[in-house]
């Protein structure tokens, strides 16, 4: 069964796996595309139950399709989807989506994330963001950390802040940026650690470092935190910055790598992006350095012809 056939199957048959009370004409199964980071689409199922109003969960189907391909047991997968959806539905009433427009209700849970500017050009037209050298800071409400959110660890329980929401909040983009930085530092403290230590390599001579947060989730954004790059420089000196994914950055000291090596690092970045990074988790294809005087990220151009200055300081 292809992915498209799987989506059709879910749409046509999921109702049969719901509790008997919901197996009625008024229950409507929808399979909808959802645009994610880097303009990638994922498909999710939404079930409308008759006249019931209010928020409905969206359950992404990609993982279930992977499970189907591994098990070939469509009946089991359909039961799993139905059970998970009904469980998620029980969680949702605790969350009032109207509060997303209430700045006082969400202001402590606004966080910052880092995405690739070019790959998200269309979405960024309607999203407040700040460009920091081919990468853009965007802002999300982290529902899992809010007092009104359900316990949804492991789910994509964030809502990206759009321009219309910012208007309702009645704050400026700069105020949004600052409050997101404050919250992110509190909720997701930065972490600088040797790569070997993270992957539990027995050798201890770390010469490659990982800059992320303590969850290793959306951790590339820690580079925006005040003082982080100064701390990196005090520990490691000048570094090349590899945007390995939206979850973390890799740092290699310039004392270990020459400027010519930046081309090799870029080749490695592009290769690993292709074979080991999900499209929605790719952060970029450029190698950066940090100019401490200008407090700016700078792209190392291929063949070392020049270092390109970028507009916004960190």
């Amino acid at each position, binding site marked *: 069964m292809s992915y498209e056939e799987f989506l059709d199957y879910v749409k046509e048959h999921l109702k049969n796996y719901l509790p008997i009370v919901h197996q009625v004409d008024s229950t409507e199964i929808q399979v909808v595309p959802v645009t994610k980071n880097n303009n990638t689409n994922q498909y999710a199922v939404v079930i409308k139950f008759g006249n019931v109003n209010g928020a409905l969960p969206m359950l992404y189907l990609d993982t279930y399709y992977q499970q189907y391909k591994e098990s070939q047991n469509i009946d089991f997968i359909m039961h799993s989807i139905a059970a998970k959806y009904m469980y998620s539905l029980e969680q949702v009433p605790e969350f009032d989506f109207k509060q997303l427009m209430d700045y006082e209700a969400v202001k402590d849970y606004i966080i910052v994330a880092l995405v690739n500017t070019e790959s998200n050009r269309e979405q960024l037209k309607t999203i407040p963001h700040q460009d920091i050298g081919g990468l853009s800071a965007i802002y999300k409400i982290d529902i899992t950390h809010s007092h009104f959110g359900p316990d949804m660890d492991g789910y994509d329980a964030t809502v990206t802040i759009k321009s219309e929401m910012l208007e309702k909040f009645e704050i400026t983009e700069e105020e949004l940026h600052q409050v997101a930085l404050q919250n992110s530092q509190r909720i997701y403290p930065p972490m600088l650690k040797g790569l070997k230590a993270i992957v539990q390599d027995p050798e201890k001579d770390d010469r490659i470092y990982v800059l992320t947060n303590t969850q290793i989730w959306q951790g590339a954004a820690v580079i925006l935190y005040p003082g982080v790059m100064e701390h990196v420089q005090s520990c490691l000196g000048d570094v090349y910055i590899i945007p390995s994914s939206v979850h973390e950055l890799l740092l290699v000291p310039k004392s270990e790598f020459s400027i010519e090596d930046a081309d090799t690092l870029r080749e490695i970045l592009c290769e690993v992006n292709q074979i*080991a990074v999900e499209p929605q988790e790719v952060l970029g294809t450029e190698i950066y350095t940090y100019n401490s005087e200008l407090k700016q990220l700078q792209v190392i151009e291929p063949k070392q012809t020049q270092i390109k200055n970028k507009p916004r300081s960190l």
Partner: protein
Amino acid sequence: MKPTEKEKQRTMRRLELYLKKIQEVLGKKEEGK
């Protein structure tokens, strides 16, 4: 948010691959010295 188990596995695979590939570069540099 916390990463799912699958996301954690992907992260470890990605980082292990980077470690292997960058160490190869370092190894070649040391051989060339």
